[in-house]
């Protein structure tokens, strides 16, 4: 960011700071002199650490986004949400079943959904949050797992929900149940795991480990390559 670059004024905790117009909220905070120890993580939109509420100039709406992925605008007010004190169920994944009763037991709050869609509007990943909540209420774990797949667990849905639902934690349970119990078993994988236990490849690997540098190099460059 060069000094000559066009600046905009943003408000951090209500105080105005001039920052480069191309900044994200995250780099703007740093430009203003804040070294972050919360509300910052991967800086690339994958970890959900930098949930932020903001309001743009002349707008009454409180918007939600990721600080690392949202470009500042002139007159923007921002507040970071470093932690979401949301309820998370404790369970042993081996002891529960992939059906609606699990959600009734661990996340009964799901059934309070009033269908207002505020969660969906708050989601920085553009996930159809309310739709997956509704899917869970109907016991459709597959749909919930699929719709919520891109969730990065920033917690903004839960923060904005008038029914106090913890969407992102319920979705985590849904995906684990789906991955473990509902997705098809992979016959190739099971077979290979068995073969490994039986030691089928041990002698081949013994040989490979014992190759000298020249032999190994030659074998490597000669190996046949399949891309399909």
């Amino acid at each position, binding site marked *: 960011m060069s000094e000559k670059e066009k600046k905009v004024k943003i408000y951090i905790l209500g105080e105005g700071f001039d920052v480069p117009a191309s900044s994200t909220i995250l780099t703007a905070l740093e430009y203003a002199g804040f070294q972050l120890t919360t509300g910052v993580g*991967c800086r*690339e939109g994958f970890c959900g*650490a930098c949930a932020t509420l903001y309001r743009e100039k002349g707008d009454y709406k409180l918007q939600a986004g990721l600080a690392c992925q949202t470009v500042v605008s002139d007159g923007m007010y921002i507040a970071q949400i470093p932690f979401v004190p949301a309820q998370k169920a404790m369970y042993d994944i081996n002891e529960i079943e992939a059906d609606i009763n699990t959600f009734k037991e661990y996340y009964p709050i799901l059934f309070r959904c009033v269908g207002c869609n505020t969660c969906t509007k708050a989601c920085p990943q553009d996930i159809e949050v309310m739709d997956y909540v509704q899917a869970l209420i109907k016991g459709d774990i597959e749909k919930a797992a699929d719709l919520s797949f891109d969730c990065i667990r920033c917690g903004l849905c839960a923060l904005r929900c008038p029914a106090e639902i913890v969407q992102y934690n319920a979705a985590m349970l849904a995906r684990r149940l789906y991955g473990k119990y509902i*997705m098809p078993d*992979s016959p*190739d994988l099971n077979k290979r795991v068995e073969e490994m236990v039986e030691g089928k490849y041990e002698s081949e690997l013994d040989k490979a480990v014992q190759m000298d540098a020249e032999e190994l190099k030659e074998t490597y460059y000669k190996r046949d390559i399949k891309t399909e």
Partner: protein
Amino acid sequence: MYLDYMRESIKNVEKTRAERLKLAKSGKPIVERMSDKEREEVLNKFHPDYKEESRKKVRIGPNKGDKLTSEVVDILEAYSRVQPDYFDLENPDYETDVLVIGAGSAGFCAAILADENGADVTLATKLRSGDSNSMMAQGGIQAAVRPDDSPYLHYLDVMGGGHFDNKSDLVRALVSEAPGAIKWLQELGVMFDRNEDGTMLTKPGGGTCRPRMHSARDYSGAGMCRVLRDEVENRADRINILEHQPAVELIKDEKGKVAGAILYHLQNKCYITVKAKSTIIATGGFGRLHVQGFETTNHYGATADGLVMAYRVGANLMYMDSVQYHPTGAVFPPQILGFLCTEKLRGLGAQPVNKNGELFVYPLEPRDVEASAFIRECKERGNGVATPDGNVGIWLDTPLIEQINGSGTIKSNLPAMLRQFDRFDIDIRKDPMLVYPTLHYQNGGIEINDKCETKVEGLYVAGESTGGVHGRNRLMGNSQLDLMVFGRRAGKFAAEYAKSTKLGKLTLNHVNEYEKEVEKIGIDKDKIAPVVLPDYIPDKVKKKQYTAHPEGTLR
């Protein structure tokens, strides 16, 4: 949104696309793969590691006299953050069997396996649980599962990718336990992509001789790491998680065994002592040291703290002269400079082309070779596209992905990539991405054996902090595998060791001894490590922060 002059170059890419699509469908390599000799030549001339100033001799510690990456030498030749005399080691704040430092996938695996082997576990991490490079990985995890694949072929690929410098016993463990690791993850609830018949969907990666990459769309790292995090959280009665508390120094006992760590609480600024029968370092890599000024794909906390701590207690480093630059980091728009554009893009058929729309390299060479070819195309041949802020890149022709695999492929297989660029009004289904190599991975690290033990009793290491598994160049999908295989091994062996070990009196004497060496070579007193966090505050602001000390500068 691309600028007008970039649009002109994109027209060249569009012009050659039909011809390149034909090539891709022909089943033959679209560009001849490089021979051994050609690889060597492009690496020697263009890989950033091969520049003279990239390495220098470290003057103290177990690797004394070795040439290491210069930025690493700078943090090894530095003072401690702590004054050993301040600490009452007789009365530690926590006592535990196994201390795991770092809550990425390697740390989680270690914590789970240590718990399953009967140990009491404490898991300390710098930021939040799960905040790690593991969470950011996009492409996938390798495992030889297909009937036409085998651990032997996987072994050859790992060794060849690493230029045959890898430690063979570690590679053997890596490839042998890969299928089991995938199965374990699936049983924990990871949603791996499948073919219609239920078999695992696998794609090729750079330097692999079979399609071996298992994925969870392009949130593969998150797909695994968030499940592991959830599993660890479900064991809260047995695994004590300490967030925002990076370790800054290891503790030893009087017999020289590692016996826990000093943590520093980033929020209330307290130092905390943890006494542990065994300690596992899973602190990840060094991207945030910005080696040679490169942008990085890495997490905010990736400052190689574990290397510094381990080095001070006497563990040696291996291949710490080798840096991985991922061929495809974003160059435009400036907000996402250095961000990872997953190798899965090329696995699905995206082709690197120059400003004239010409192919110039086989798209899936090992990463160091591919990255060097990109640098050559831009720097020597002048065939890159410059950006307004002084960077340069080549095109990664992503619209081909849909033409090869059918429309809708990008949305269903690469949602993160699509979203990342769409936020800045670039639709990668219609337009290519502008990319250039970006600092991605620490190839070397703390030397371990196949039980994850270091030279120092009681100290275990797993994941990116280790050296030897990948030689001097890691292949795509083997880092995720490394986390799972060696994370689990570290947890198991550290728990077993903890059962039989007895600790003597605790001490930080090694810190005093090490600092004497640092002083002898005349290092400035304000140079301290571990770095803990990078410092991005502009100088003109910092000048006015008279009494504040950003992390990384505090003494």
